[in-house]
């Protein structure tokens, strides 16, 4: 008997600060005005996606001591946009990245619980960590966490907010106008948390929200990040969107669940994926090439090389050969506020590899960056893209994808109109939302039911 078809989960990332949005395209609109977010969210909901995702930025990136000016720069506040989007959508999940280093649990718990109430149970939190003093210069608590403490703070931060969410059980408010009893208990929301990072107590002031707790996502890929996700998250955002890498990652993370007493379906694996969609496969290939060249200008290519070289390369010709000097391997000083820098842990090896690639293919600096940098994960006609996405999911390379269009805010329109119906015809994607909350869309249990289930099991 063949395995039943897995249902695909799809979400959309409204790209904020990034190096993939083709902002110079005449169709590219505002990345700040609410009308852009509303358009994007309505398309996403029309396509019956699980949720919309917003990242966060807390300090403008710098390169060579100056604000980085080649990519989209600037974005609105995550919570505030998501709350407003709740007004123009009915079902769509609303997911925001909120940093656990530059916030305090009481405040973040209030905001997520409020968002969950105001959206009727559609909120989700992508928990991220940082440690750098560079970002910390914008905050009154200052810089800094020793790097090794960032996950310990994140874990305790998340656990603390969950204690706050759970401090109201949901049955405290009677509001009996006749008898005059508003509250069942005199001190609902009471909490005491004593830990390494937080020593707090008192009363939480937001009653229990529709989802009980917002859905939790995790995005870090380190060993600690994977463990954190396996122990505490409902979904993990990965960047492994090839079949082989995806399957390896999928297996690794799902296998970590058992030791936390969790089942395979309690953690979804959702890689980010870009796409180039056109009427035919050939046109899509052409579009993909065009988009890659638009994404990587000569200036962008040089800046990209600077991450690895850790030197000012502005005197080089982007259409010329790679620098023959070696990267500066002292502490990175050229680029600040960009996670990508950490991807190149061995700059000398990376430089060597890139020089060999460039020599073998006769690539200029810009050619190299175009060919080694961001590629569209799915390129083709609607049929090709629908088939490929389904293949990845059925092969357990992922449970679905977070699509990142290269045009804001209309970049998802064609996908919604042309690819989604094909997935629906194949019976692997919903035609209607089955329930009101994001937990429904993701097939996740309500935390209260889960606790009951665990009590019965133990």
């Amino acid at each position, binding site marked *: 008997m063949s395995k039943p078809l897995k249902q695909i989960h799809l979400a959309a990332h409204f790209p904020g600060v990034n190096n993939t949005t083709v902002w110079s395209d005449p169709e590219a609109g505002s990345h*700040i005005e609410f009308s852009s977010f509303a358009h994007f969210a309505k398309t996403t909901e029309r396509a019956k996606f699980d949720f919309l995702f917003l990242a966060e930025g807390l300090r403008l990136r710098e390169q060579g001591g100056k604000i980085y000016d080649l990519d989209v720069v600037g974005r609105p506040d995550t919570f*505030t946009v998501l709350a407003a989007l709740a*007004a123009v959508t009915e079902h769509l999940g609303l997911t925001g990245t909120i940093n656990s280093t530059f916030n305090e649990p009481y405040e973040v718990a209030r905001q997520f619980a409020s968002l969950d109430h105001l959206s009727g149970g559609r909120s989700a939190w992508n928990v991220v960590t940082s440690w750098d003093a560079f970002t910390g210069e914008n905050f009154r608590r200052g810089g800094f966490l020793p790097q090794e403490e960032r996950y310990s703070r994140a874990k305790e931060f998340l656990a603390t907010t969950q204690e706050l969410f759970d401090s109201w059980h949901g049955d405290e408010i009677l509001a009996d*106008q006749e008898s005059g009893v508003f509250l069942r208990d005199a001190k609902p929301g009471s909490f005491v948390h004593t830990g390494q990072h937080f020593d707090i107590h008192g009363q939480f002031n937001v009653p229990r929200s529709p989802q009980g707790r917002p859905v939790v996502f995790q995005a870090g890929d380190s060993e600690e990040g994977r463990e954190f996700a396996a122990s505490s998250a409902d979904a993990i955002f990965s960047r492994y969107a090839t079949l082989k890498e995806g399957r390896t990652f999928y297996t690794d993370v799902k296998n970590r669940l058992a030791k936390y007493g969790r089942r395979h379906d309690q953690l979804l694996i959702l890689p980010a994926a870009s796409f180039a969609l056109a009427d035919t496969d050939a046109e899509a290939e052409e579009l993909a090439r065009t988009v890659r060249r638009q994404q990587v200008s000569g200036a962008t290519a040089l800046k990209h090389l600077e991450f690895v070289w850790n030197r000012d390369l502005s005197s080089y010709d982007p259409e010329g050969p790679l620098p023959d000097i070696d990267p500066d391997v002292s502490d990175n000083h050229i680029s600040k506020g960009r996670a990508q820098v950490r991807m190149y842990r061995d700059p000398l090896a990376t430089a060597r590899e890139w020089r060999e690639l460039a020599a073998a293919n006769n690539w200029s600096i810009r050619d190299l960056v175009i060919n080694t940098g961001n590629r569209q994960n799915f390129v083709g006609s609607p049929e090709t893209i629908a088939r490929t996405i389904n293949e990845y999911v059925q092969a357990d390379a992922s449970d679905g994808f977070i699509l990142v269009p290269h045009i804001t805010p209309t970049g998802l329109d064609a996908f919604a109109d042309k690819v989604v119906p094909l997935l629906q015809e194949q019976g692997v994607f919903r035609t209607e939302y089955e329930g009101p909350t994001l937990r429904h869309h993701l097939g996740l249990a309500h935390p209260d039911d889960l606790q009951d289930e665990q009590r019965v099991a133990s």
Partner: protein
Amino acid sequence: MSPSSSSPSLLHLAVALDGTGWHPASWREPEARPRELLTAGYWADLVAEAERGLLDFVTIEDGLGPQSSHFLDPDERTDQVRGRLDAVLIASRIAPLTRHIGLVPTAVVTHTEPFHLSKAIATLDYVSTGRAGLRVQITARPSEAAHFGRRTIPRIEAYDSPETQELVTDLFDEAADHVEAVRRLWDSWEDDAEIRDAATGRFIDRDKLHYIDFEGKHFSVKGPSITPRPPQGQPLVTALGHQTVPYRLIARQADVGYVTPHDTDQARAIVAEIRAEQETAGRADELLHVFGDLVVFLDDDPAEAAARRDRLDTLAGEPYQSDARIFTGTPSQLADLLGEFQAAGLTGFRLRPAVLGHDLPAITRGLVPELQRRGAFRTDYEADTLRGLLGLDRPANRYAAA
């Protein structure tokens, strides 16, 4: 100093939204909807009603701990509304559903980050296309400090002691610093910083982005903001004050101050004090509104309003007391009183409905038409932004080269 876009004889009206209303027994009234306080629909209906009445703006109360009948400590009462949602997020949730009315959530600045607050209010300004404001509040509650665990705030024992004065002054000075950092962040992008220059590949002109380099006693902030300058340039900043120290915050940093005079003499004295502080702060030529706060019980028959207040007091088990004057009477009587206060120097009013479900419609459908008959209130929204409604210009960016 009179605003150019509205006649000086017009007064401004805001309404303060809190739970089911300002009387602690208000939730027991038939119109109160106490089970819906945590839903978006409840707040959408209230703000729609306020907008129907052409009010300048609504404020939304908030706090970093449970509501309490005690000024400093949580209480253990079960007979009053407890629990609430984040006010900035309520305002943002309502913004796309309204078109003209200003949205002014409360934010407690004692334990929160200026960087986060600045981008949140800037974003509220984007989602409302220019109708955002901020009501700045401090907290001296030790219990709320314990929710953050980063500092302790000593419990105020005697209000007139030097220690208390020092604590209160310090909290308000910190609030002034907080607002200063927020305001600088709003200006940290010049309006035309986004250039999308395809020729050079530059998305922004980084010379039009500015580090704010704020250094204060309690914190420092580098900047620039992550969010471009909001539509109003500077969203509205407001604060409530009852004495000299908060009046100084109003004079230094606010666009609208709320005060609580109980008669016209007191109103005159408060306005004079704020104007003097405003001059000391070097802002004498800037328009600063001083609004009177009043709790209102409004009915067509004054006896009915008084009876309603008595009934609610009986339900609450004690007479309702407030920092603000409590008005009980008809819309026409209230219009008389507002006129007298206006003559004493107040430029507008923030009314606190005793029962939102009753007194808010009484404001929009009773008081507003009465004021309009007297030529004292707008008959249509005359501007697209909250600053515009209040006759405030869009300020120049402090960092832009002249």
